[in-house]
């Protein structure tokens, strides 16, 4: 199978869906870039280059540079989606959803239910998450808990290139608003990605590695970190089962519960602050549904309850890192 980067995989998914369905459009800040300036249009392809070349293929009618105006980007995309267009709106960094959250959680997310099932909003909101870029407090957050807690939103966190393509195609074809969270630190990671279109369904976890000693679950970039630690520990005979839920809403409880029934131990790795976060949510699911199987208290490895610091030494400590993940695994094994 051909190797492609996570970035290319998303690009290919969007490109193929745009070829297939004229209702699919792309809008956001600098998604083409360069229009009206001396260098010519299409020169940016979104800040992380994910949309490179789309302008050249589909033109200004379908690849729209917007002003810096997040509320109107999401509002416009949501309105167009109600009519049956399938807009893919980009919010450059997840941090900026603060500007347009009303359009996400009061509007798009509520339409299907609030209008008694009469409305549908096939909208994809792509945005980027994650610290580790030395980008400071307002450009580094991982805000999946914020979206996950909103009924009506589907929340996707691809952890590798293969999933990125299949989940994006699924997101575009889905009839509900989908928040598609791209991990900045994964853009350059490679994986085997088929050339033809394929779908990866929502709500089906990926078990990366089977093991009998401890269940380790994480999302996005944290999946790679958990897998890395698991591979290290395997050398000393510790068998971790590593689970990537792929989507946090819907969430595949069955796979997780089944795993914990087997291992009796759970470590949740999550890149976001600990309070009211995904790690707390997952822990509560397991505490409710697999309490009797637990041989040790659940351990959460999260960020501290602080904004993201800029200084590299602090930021590296802020993120769940292999050292902290390993310590947590050893701790539940010792209990």
């Amino acid at each position, binding site marked *: 199978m051909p190797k492609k980067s996570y970035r290319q995989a998303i690009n290919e998914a969007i490109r193929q869906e745009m070829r297939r369905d004229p209702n699919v459009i792309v809008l956001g800040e600098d998604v083409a870039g*360069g229009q009206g300036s001396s260098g010519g249009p299409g020169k940016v392809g979104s800040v992380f280059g994910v949309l490179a070349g789309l302008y050249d293929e589909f033109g200004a009618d379908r690849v729209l540079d917007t002003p810096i105006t997040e509320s109107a980007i999401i509002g416009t995309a949501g309105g167009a989606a109600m009519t049956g267009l399938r807009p893919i709106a980009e919010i450059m960094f997840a941090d900026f959803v603060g500007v347009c959250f009303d359009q996400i959680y009061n509007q798009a997310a509520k339409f299907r239910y609030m209008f008694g099932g009469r409305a549908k909003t096939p909208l994809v909101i792509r945005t980027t998450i994650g610290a580790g870029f030395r980008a400071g407090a307002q450009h580094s957050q991982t805000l999946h808990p914020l979206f996950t807690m909103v009924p009506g939103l589907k929340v996707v966190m691809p952890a590798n290139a293969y999933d990125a393509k299949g989940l994006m195609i699924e997101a575009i074809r889905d009839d509900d608003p989908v928040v598609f969270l791209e991990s900045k630190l994964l853009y350059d990671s490679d994986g085997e990605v088929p050339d033809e279109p394929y779908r990866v369904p929502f709500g089906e976890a990926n078990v990366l590695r089977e093991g009998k000693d401890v269940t380790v679950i994480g999302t996005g970039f944290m999946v790679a970190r958990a897998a890395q630690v698991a591979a290290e520990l395997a050398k000393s005979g510790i068998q971790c089962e590593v689970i990537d839920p792929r989507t946090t809403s819907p969430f595949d409880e069955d796979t997780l519960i089944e795993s914990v029934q087997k291992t009796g131990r759970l470590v949740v790795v999550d890149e976001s602050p600990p309070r009211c976060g995904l790690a707390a949510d997952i822990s509560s699911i397991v505490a409710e549904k697999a309490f009797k199987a637990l041989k040790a208290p659940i351990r959460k490895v999260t960020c501290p309850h602080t904004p993201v610091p800029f200084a590299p030494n602090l930021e590296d400590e802020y993120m769940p890192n292999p050292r902290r993940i390993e310590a947590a695994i050893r701790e539940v094994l010792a209990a």
Partner: protein
Amino acid sequence: MAKNGGAAKASAKPQTLLGYYRDMLLIRRFEERAGQLYGMGLIGGFCHLYIGQEAVVVGMQAAMQPGDQVITGYRDHGHMLACGMEANGVMAELTGRAGGYSKGKGGSMHMFSREKNFFGGHGIVGAQVSLGTGIAFANRYRDNGAVCVAYFGDGAANQGQVYESFNMASLWKLPIVYVVENNQYAMGTSVQRSSSETHLHRRGASFNIPGEEVDGMDVLAVREAGARALKHARTGQGPMLLEMKTYRYRGHSMSDPAKYRTREEVDAVRQHSDPIERLKLRLMEDQVADEAALKEIDREVRAIVSASAEFAQSSPEPDASELMTDIYR
């Protein structure tokens, strides 16, 4: 933008002109050095350089009075230096060191100084405009005679909260001067492609906010316009909007390959409208200073910048315990 030599013939004392020259040069040299440190990997993340736009903050600062406040976005190094913040503390923040203004916890976009009335570097485009409006509200509430100067970009000028703020500020006659730094690009999107009204100084019209277009490459023109606007705001007539026509020479941030515009476009502005060169020309023409005197200023400025680069590398990393401080009290 006017061409070199067309600098406004506004009157100014020789020492004052030399002061502007020095202040602009300090920003230019500081930014050049920051760019170098970035290239060497000593600065990470985002680093938005102000090169080309120096006349805007230096001219505005010259028109301001003690007690007036400044708030801006993430392209903030020039604003901080113009406010009189220390080059050392700014550069050390860029390198993420304990000696930085935010102890290394903020980075290039996020510094703050109550002492110098600088209310921050903000990373969410447009947020500073509402915040500046609040600072102006506090000025009027306290009746302290101060005016807030809120800077934002041509791209930021399309954010909804800018207009929500305009309306309130005009309604309440708040002492604020809104300064749009129109450098013609918001990352890779030109003003023509993002704005239905490209004359951004007209953007206040429907809120009864008078606007003025200013040659932002001419420090004296900026100062004059700034003085008028500040007076307007200070005398209870409400906000004013200044559109500074300017240009950024470098990419949006250090990681911007700037493929959206040609080298020639950038070179043309550099050659014909550079704010520092223009003032230099005038200083020489008016025989305020000769080549040697200007060289001396350059030497002085370079020494400050070099010292700041040293400091930014020798200052220690923040202590690990700093991760958990300053959250709340």
